[in-house]
């Protein structure tokens, strides 16, 4: 044994120095790793956010373009095509009365077809932009939706509201977007959820708005839906976002789904926008 000789002590000191140098080096490597990781993760997050923002902007642009187009087509159908068809119909009526040489049965048949086309054009124009929404507001438009669906007897749609005067709560865009959200939610419930009962409630809670839609459909996995977000849900989320609101989704397989949309007071929404 070397005992505590100077050389043994010196060598042990060197070993200790090597040891501490190695530990220090490892700690530096670990520190460098964590710093780089933080940077990489934040860059990745930034890129992801940019991608999401771009997607969201694209959807917003689509929504706005879609609305403008719907508006234009509905107006063209109603004012232009509809009026001209009415003129044709009136002309046919007139000719039918004054010209006795014409085959009455044939002109009656043409008149019937013309009136059918007029009805179809009118209903198409209404579907694209319900006049009731512009004239009487969202509550009336949703009551009409309730009436039309219940008329078919294939599903039951229950609409409830405590709103009597819409003016202080919604502006034109709010009404249109909320109407479209309800349309999309009903379509999804029927198409994907195979629902037989849909409940919609539109409540004024001291100026805040709570729109809720519940169905008894097949339900879905909320996480999976969020991961593979389709255009429908994205449209709804974007409309809610454009209104300055938030949305909560809950669903239980084979029991149904609930969508809760909350909009802050109109004044606050205008301030945020």
């Amino acid at each position, binding site marked *: *044994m*070397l005992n*505590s000789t100077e050389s043994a002590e010196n060598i042990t000191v060197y070993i200790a120095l*090597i040891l501490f140098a190695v*530990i220090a080096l490892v700690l530096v490597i670990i520190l460098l790793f964590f710093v780089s*990781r933080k940077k990489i993760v934040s860059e990745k997050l930034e890129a992801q956010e940019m991608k999401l923002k771009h997607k969201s902007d694209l959807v917003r642009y689509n929504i706005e373009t879609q609305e403008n187009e719907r508006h234009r087509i509905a107006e063209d159908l109603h004012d232009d095509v509809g009026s001209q068809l009415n003129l044709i119909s009136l002309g046919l009526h007139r000719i039918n009365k004054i010209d006795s040489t014409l085959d009455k049965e044939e002109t009656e048949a043409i008149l019937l077809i013309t009136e059918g086309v007029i009805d179809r054009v009118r209903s198409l124009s209404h579907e694209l932009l319900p006049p009731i929404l512009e004239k009487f507001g969202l509550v009336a438009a949703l009551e009409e939706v309730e009436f039309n669906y219940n008329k078919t007897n294939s599903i039951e749609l229950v609409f409830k509201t405590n709103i009597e005067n819409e003016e202080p709560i919604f502006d034109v865009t709010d009404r249109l977007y909320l109407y479209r959200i309800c349309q999309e939610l009903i379509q999804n419930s029927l198409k994907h959820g195979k629902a037989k009962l849909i409940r919609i409630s539109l409540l004024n809670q001291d100026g805040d708005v709570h729109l809720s839609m519940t169905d008894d459909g097949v339900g879905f996995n909320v996480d999976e839906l969020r991961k593979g977000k389709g255009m429908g849900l994205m449209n709804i989320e974007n409309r809610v976002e454009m209104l300055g609101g938030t949305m909560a989704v809950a669903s239980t397989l084979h029991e149904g789904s609930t969508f809760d949309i909350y909009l802050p007071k109109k004044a606050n929404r205008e301030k945020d926008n």
Partner: protein
Amino acid sequence: MKDHLLLFNFVTLALIAILGILTSLKFKKNELPWKIIALYLIGSFVTNVITYVFWEMKWNNLKILHIYSIFQFVSFSAFYWSTTRNRTKQLLILVFSGTITGLLILNSIWFESLQDFNSMGIFISNGTLIVYSVAYFFEVLGAEVNAKKFLIVNAGILVFISESLVVFLFGNFLKKVALIDQAVLWYTHISTYIIFLLLILWNHAKLDRIR
């Protein structure tokens, strides 16, 4: 000094026992890497107790180090094998670790005596583990959150394994030096091991919070 080292050893033993129990709770439900860590801790606890008994009985306990270094290498290799889902990496770890385990056994039988430190064996096995550990860091650098679950444990392994590599590389030289002169090295070794165990505890607690 002997008393201080003993006290340190008891603290380490208590920590291993606590961690062993913590990681063994809900063993079946735990993910494979945690199961491997639990088994490693149980093995470490048993080895530490046997080493202590050998020391008390004044028997040469270096043959236990030979067995323990193989056990540690296999455990950590299995840990890194279980943390990656990449089949090629798993196969590489399997081939490398299998070969090195074989070499470690041959080394203990024919080359480095059971009465001495297996410095070369530890150098090769710990060197391999350092490569695995650094590779793990690179793998999770930009990976999804899920892959980063064992970052703290990995940092602990890297520090402990690197430190062990240096200490045991000079093990046979240290046998010739008085205990008092090598104290700083063994204190550092035990301290690094305690830090490694505390990092496992931290990682485990962090994971529990996520659950």
